C-alpha cells in the first residue's frame, strides 16, 4: 500500500508558533503557558489566540504586569518538575525579569551541584520594523547570549518557529526564544516530513563562494534578498542563518568563512558589544589567516529605535546596505 505523502502546508510564522505551543500542551501535561494577555486577549501579537478556549485557564494563565514575579514563578515550577512556557510581551520588558533569569534560572543548576535543573522556556518578541518605538522595538538577544547557562534561540524561518519550541522544552536548561515581530506575518511552506529541529547548529540557507553573510531573525530574509541581487552581478553570497546565538555554532560559521574568506555579519542589535562583535572576535581569533579581507558588520544605528517609519527604516540594517557592503568587500571582478 502506498502511504499517503503529506503535502507541504503553507502557514505563517505566527501560526507556526501557535501550533508549536498547542503541540507542547497536548503532548505533555506538565506544560503550561503563562504571561501578560496570553489568555483572554490571545497574546499581544495574537500568537495564543484560541488557546484559552481549547486548554482552559489552568494551562493558559494570564498574569499581572509583573515580569519578575511570573518569570520567577516559572522558574519555581520548572524546578518542581513542570515544563512551563513563559511569554514576555517584548524583550524590552524582560529586563524587569533579568534578575530572575540571570541570578536564578541560570545559576540554580550550578549552585545545586546539578541537583536541580530549570527546564524553563521563555518566549519573547524582539526587534523593530512595526513602528512600536523605543520601548518595544529593541533587539536584546545579543545581551542574553552573554550569559552562561542559557540557550538563546532566534527562529528566522517558519520551520524553526514551528519546531524550536519542542526542542527547547526537551532541553534541561533555561531556553530563551526570540520571535521577531516582523516575521509573525511571514509565510512559508512547511515540510510535513520535518518533525523536529535541532537547537545546536547554524544553517546555510543559501550556498555561495564569494562572501559569507552571517545573520539571524528578521535580517535573514534581508540577507537572502541581497544575495539574490548580488547573484545577478556575479557575486555569490553564502547566507548563514545563525539560529542559535548561544551556544554559537563555531563549526558551521568557521567552515563557511574558511571557504569564502570574506564575512559580513548582519545583526539588528546595536553594534557595540553585540553578538556580531562576539562573532567577529572569534573569527579574528581563530580564522585570522583564512581571511582575505576585513570582517564587516551591519547593525542597527546606536539610537533608541525611532517611531517614525522613515527613521526606523534608516536605523535598521537593510538589504541595500548588505548589497553595497558585499560589493565593496568582494570587489568588482
Amino acid at each position: 500500500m502506498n502511504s499517503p505523502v503529506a503535502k507541504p502546508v503553507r502557514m505563517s510564522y505566527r501560526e507556526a508558533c501557535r501550533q508549536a505551543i498547542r503541540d507542547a500542551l497536548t503532548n505533555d501535561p506538565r506544560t503550561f503557558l503563562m504571561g501578560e494577555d496570553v489568555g483572554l486577549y490571545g497574546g499581544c501579537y495574537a500568537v495564543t489566540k484560541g488557546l484559552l478556549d481549547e486548554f482552559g485557564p489552568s494551562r493558559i494563565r494570564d498574569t499581572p504586569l509583573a515580569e519578575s514575579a511570573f518569570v520567577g514563578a516559572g522558574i519555581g515550577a520548572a524546578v518542581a518538575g513542570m515544563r512551563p512556557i513563559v511569554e514576555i510581551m517584548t524583550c524590552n520588558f524582560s529586563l524587569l525579569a533579568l534578575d530572575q533569569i540571570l541570578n536564578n534560572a541560570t545559576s540554580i543548576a550550578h549552585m545545586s551541584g546539578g541537583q536541580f535543573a530549570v527546564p524553563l522556556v521563555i518566549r519573547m518578541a524582539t526587534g523593530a520594523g512595526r513602528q512600536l518605538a523605543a520601548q518595544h522595538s529593541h533587539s536584546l538577544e545579543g545581551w542574553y547570549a552573554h550569559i552562561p547557562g542559557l540557550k538563546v534561540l532566534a527562529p528566522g524561518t517558519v520551520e524553526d518557529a514551528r519546531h524550536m519550541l519542542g526542542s527547547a522544552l526537551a532541553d534541561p536548561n533555561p531556553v530563551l526564544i526570540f520571535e521577531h515581530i516582523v516575521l509573525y506575518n511571514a509565510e512559508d511552506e512547511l515540510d510535513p516530513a520535518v518533525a523536529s529541529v535541532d537547537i545546536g547548529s547554524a544553517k546555510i540557507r543559501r550556498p555561495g563562494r564569494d562572501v559569507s553573510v552571517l545573520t539571524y531573525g528578521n535580517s535573514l530574509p534581508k540577507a537572502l534578498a541581497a544575495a539574490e541581487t548580488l547573484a545577478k552581478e556575479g557575486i555569490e553570497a553564502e547566507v548563514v542563518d545563525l539560529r542559535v546565538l548561544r551556544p554559537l555554532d563555531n563549526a558551521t560559521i568557521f567552515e563557511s568563512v574558511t571557504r569564502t574568506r570574506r564575512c559580513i555579519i548582519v545583526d539588528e542589535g546595536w553594534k557595540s558589544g553585540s553578538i556580531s562583535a562576539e562573532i567577529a572576535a572569534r573569527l579574528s581569533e581563530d580564522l585570522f589567516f583564512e581571511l582575505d579581507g576585513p570582517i564587516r558588520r551591519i547593525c542597527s544605528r546606536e539610537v533608541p529605535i525611532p517611531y517614525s517609519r522613515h527613521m526606523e527604516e534608516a536605523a535598521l540594517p537593510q538589504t541595500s546596505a548588505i548589497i553595497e557592503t558585499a560589493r565593496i568587500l568582494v570587489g568588482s571582478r
Partner: protein
Amino acid sequence: MSDFLMPSLGADMERGKLVEWLVKPGSEVKKGDVIAIVETHKGAFEVDIFEEGVISELCAGEGQEVPVGGVLARLMPSNSVPAIVPPPGPMAPTAVVKAPEVALAAPPSPGAPSASAKSPTVAQKVSSISPASRARAKVTPAAGRRAAELEIDPYTLKGTGIYGSVTIADVERASASQVSREASARPTRPGRGFDPLQMRQAIAAAMSRSKREIPHYYLTTTIDMGPSLSWLETFNTERPPDQRLLPATLFLKATALALREVPQFNGFWENGRFRPGSGIHIGWAVSLRGGGLIAPAVHDVDTMTLSELMSALRDLVARARGGGLRSSEMTNPSFTVTSLGERGADSVIGVIYPPQVATLGFGRIAVRPWVIDDKVTARPIVVSSLAADHRASDGHAGGLFLAAVDRLLQEPVKL
C-alpha cells in the same frame, strides 16, 4: 579626475612593465595619444589613451610592474587647475611624495643628490630593513600566508582588494608571472622590438589554451578569384605603386562585410557565453622576421574603403615588425584573418585566438582547373578555411559565412 589603467594587451596578459613614460605630470593629452611604453611578454607596446585631459600624477615608476587594471596615471579634466604630483622615482611607492625628513620615508631616487648619503642615518638604516612600502601596503592575512608558501614578498605587490589590499588572488597572479619571468632572463630596459623567446611563450600559452578549451570545427570553401584579380589589375594599373592594392585588402573587406551578415563570428566567448564585438575589428596575422606571430587589429574594417584599408595594413605591418603597436590594436580584435600570400601553402586551418570565436584563413592564390558552364578552364583559385568555436556557433552558420565571403569576392567593385 579619472584613472588611466594598465590595459590588457591580450587574453593571457596578467601584468606589464612600465618601460618609459612619454608624458609627465602637467602634459595635456587627447584621445589616441601615446603616453607610455609598456612591455609584456609579447614585447613592448605603445599605450594610447582614450580620454582627454591633463596628466596629474604618474602612479607607476619606470621599471615598475603593474597588474592589468592597476593605476598607471591619474588624469584631470583640462579645464580644472591641476594639482600636479611629481612622478615617483624608479620602483618608489606612489604616495610618498613629500620631502623625507622622518624615518620610513621613501629612499631618495638614484639621480637626486643626497647630503646624508655619505653618513647613513638611523632613519636610512631602518628604511633599508623595512622599506617604506612595507609600512603602507595592506596585505590580507590569507594573502600573507599564501605569499609565504609561494616565497613571494607580498609587500611589493599592487593590491586589487578592498582598500587596495593585496589578496590571495594578487599573490597567486604574481607567483604565476614570476614563474614566467624566471623562464628567461631579460634585459631591464628592452628596446621596442620583440623578444623571440617571450613571443614563443606567449604563442605557446595562447594556442595551448585555445586547443585545450575551444572545441574547434572547420569548414573550407574554394573561391574563384578571377573576378577579384581582374578588377584589381584594372584598379592598380591606373595607380602609382604606393597606392596599389593587394588581394589581402579584398580578403579583409569581404570578411568584414560577411561578419556584418553573420555577426555570431565577430566577438568573444567569455564566462560561458558569447559577447558580440563592439565593432568589426579584425586581427591581421603578421609573421615577424626572426620568428613569431602577432595579430594586431585593424579597426572598423567594414567601414573602410579598400584604399584606406591598404594603407592601414601597410602601417600596421610596418609597426608590428618594428615594435610600435598601440595597446588599442592589441586589446580588441574580435576576429582574426590569416592570409598566407603568394609563397604560402594551399590552405591554412587556423587555431582560434582566445577569447575570439573564429578565425578565417586564406591560402595561396593558384591557377587551377575550374569548371564554368560545364567547361574546364584555368582560373585563379583560393581555399578559404574557417575555424570556429562550436560553443558559440554551428556549422550551418559557418557555411553561410563562407558563402557570403565567396559571394562578396565575386563582386569586387562593391567592396
